[in-house]
């Protein structure tokens, strides 16, 4: 008995050691049931609450990942081609938007010049309307060389003052090898803040990131109006996510949709639980400040309310 108990203790100690090296909680090894809520607050660093997992809100996806994406880690997000940059960027920014909800701190987006030239520079009005990322919250650091971008990312990741750090690279450069990804991962783990590696036009290669997701575009659903779907319209952003590497999930594919009004993911196919015409995008309507406001600052959602009932068409079709 005594020997078996001692052996078990050694076994558990080893298991914990492995879990510590891999940067996840030991309890997760056995736990298969989804964690309740978004996870407990583990540490408080720089005034930001650090939770262990980031729940995306899409239940099946979260369950497959064992509760959500690890927060204190490097997460690799990959787009197969440069033209998929819109989708992969959109998915990462959606994750950032979720993070900003719990920890309002600046976001750093670094990358090399060539990726910004090929896939375009971040466009603040789009980031703001879709993901609620204020321009004042975003720092963009285009770097001449990959080494500089990695230096910026490592320094930012180590600091932990950012709510998220995005590193965007193109292809599979030789300089960004397993060692470089391990350095980023360790810094993210020590600081407790996530680092997202956004790889455009690359193929999967060995990485220290515990989770790698491959994002490809998915046709968007139609816009929902009070009287049903609006024919021929392009609805909220949709993504096809393939889990390519995960410590807990088997390879799987999901189609997620970003709910712009709720600022949360939902799985495609699920019945839309959200009101078709939301009251207001940014919470309940607040009385405008006197004096400073412009008359048309708070505008209703255009497609949702302005369309007449009855047979619905996209605007351009009515021209023809």
């Amino acid at each position: 008995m005594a020997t078996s108990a001692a052996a078990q203790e050694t076994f558990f100690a080893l298991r914990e050691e492995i879990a510590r090296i891999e940067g996840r909680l030991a309890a997760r090894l056995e736990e298969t049931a989804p964690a309740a809520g978004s996870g407990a607050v583990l540490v408080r660093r720089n005034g930001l609450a650090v939770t262990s997992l980031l729940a995306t809100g899409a239940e099946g996806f979260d369950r497959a990942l064992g509760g959500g994406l690890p927060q204190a880690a490097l997460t690799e997000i990959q787009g197969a081609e440069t033209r998929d940059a819109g989708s992969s960027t959109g998915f990462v920014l959606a994750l950032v938007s979720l993070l900003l909800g719990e920890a309002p701190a600046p976001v750093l987006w670094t990358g090399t010049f060539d990726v910004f030239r090929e896939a375009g520079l971040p466009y603040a009005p789009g980031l703001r309307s879709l993901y609620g990322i204020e321009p004042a919250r975003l720092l963009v650091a285009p770097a001449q060389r990959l080494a500089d971008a990695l230096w910026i990312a490592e320094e930012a990741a180590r600091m932990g003052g950012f709510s998220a750090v995005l590193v965007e690279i193109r292809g599979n450069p030789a300089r960004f090898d397993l060692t470089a990804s391990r350095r980023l991962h360790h810094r993210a783990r020590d600081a407790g803040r996530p680092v997202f590696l956004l790889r455009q036009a690359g193929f999967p290669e060995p990485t220290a990131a515990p989770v790698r997701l491959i994002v490809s575009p998915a046709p968007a659903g139609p816009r929902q109006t009070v009287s049903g779907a609006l024919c021929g319209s392009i609805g909220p952003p949709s993504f096809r996510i393939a889990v390519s590497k995960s410590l807990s999930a088997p390879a799987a594919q999901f189609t997620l949709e970003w709910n712009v009004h709720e600022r949360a993911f939902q799985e495609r196919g699920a019945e839309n639980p959200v009101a078709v015409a939301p009251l207001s995008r940014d919470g309940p309507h607040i009385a405008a400040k006197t004096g400073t406001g412009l008359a048309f600052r708070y505008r209703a959602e255009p497609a949702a309310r302005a369309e007449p009932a009855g047979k619905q068409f996209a605007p351009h079709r009515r021209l023809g």
Partner: protein
Amino acid sequence: MLSRQENNSRRIAALDEKAERLGLRRGTGIADARAMYPSLEVAEADPEADRRLIEALADWCDRYTPLVALDGVDGLFLDISGCAHLFGGERCLLDDIAARFFHQGFAVRAGLASTPGAAWAAARFAPGGCILGQGEEESFMAGLPLAALRLEAATRTSLESVGLSTVGSIAGAPRAPLARRFGTTLILRLDQALGRVEEAISPRLPVAVLSVERHLAEPVALMEDIERLVLLLAGSLKQDLERRGEGARSLELLLFRVDGAVGRVAVGASLPLREPHLIGRLFHERLAALEREIDAGYGFDLVRLSALATAAFESTQGDLSGAALSGDRDIAMFADRVRARLGPDALLRPQLSGSHVPERAASLRRIEAVPAEMHAVSDSLAGGSAVERPLRLLTPAEPIEVPATEVPEGPPLNFRWRRALYRVTRAEGPERIAPEWWREQEAAASRDYFRVEDADGRRYWLYREGLYDPFEKIRTRWYLQGLSA
């Protein structure tokens, strides 16, 4: 011997001692000199290089006093008020200057006096290393020729033609007739030399608010040593900053090399700095970026750290854990370090502006002061609209080929972008954006924007420039401007 073009003839601009011994003088024509001594070696004078050299020397003289001014093309003024004691007195200072210049291979004449005019004369007309005490100017100047008064050649010759050839003869003469006949400059120069009129020299560089320096008996060349010195100096700078209740916004490190070259390394801080280790980290990044450009040569024997600009330092009290207020400071420090290493354009922030043209509505700008802006919610018309915009903007917009549209002003059926063909399955639009006539130089065409989705589900933001006109046959052009999620 150096020659120079002057009034259509080549004349001697400068000559060495050997040529001087042959009896040649400045201003002699090169042709005459060659006729006398055919083996003369003549090189073209380079005034630009001379100017650079004298400026480099002025930089180097910064080690004695921050107030260094250029005097013509061949002289330097050093205002050593309050600096002489640092070098052990005026005599030691003068000897030190003369010795260091001698070892660098320059022949210098130095003079020291209470007024710039008298010092100028002492350097040029007295035997080497002349020091004039307070009140000795008059007796010293009296015996010197008129050239010692920094007069123009025309004034001097006309004075000499009436028999006034020494300073003493003018100083004793009645002033009013002199001024009437030879101009007030003469009187002014005389008064300046004798200390009756204040004369200020204009220093080349602005004087730093605070500076600390360290003279080294043994020159240092290694970057690690320099960084350690920066920490030491920043430690002494901190005391001065604390006394003034300020922090440094802009710092400069001066490295005086043994052979006279001066290296300047400047860093800026977005928040006032005081802590030595923070200053040390900024310089660490800057020095790492400049590692190839800084040539230590035989080493640096004087290192000076100056605060060029300071600002009030706000002392904040953190909570007991000391964590509460560190977020902004961390990010400010991070931004400073990135900019110190990779230049001011390394860190940008999007900025919205009130414009309907998409590429003008938002731009990436340099960061001026980090924390103040960081939490300010921008409240601009451009970003507040509920119209959907792409996530990434291609700048400039890339032209695409559109073979056909369903209706003349409708969205494309397919398009070719970067040599690949995309079939459009769905489209939304148009959203017409007219050019801003108050900004454009010439009339630009209006744009019709479409959000389109291709067969794979990628979403793009396209626009057509110009309108179809069945009679005019105006060519319209299509562009792809953005990628959406």
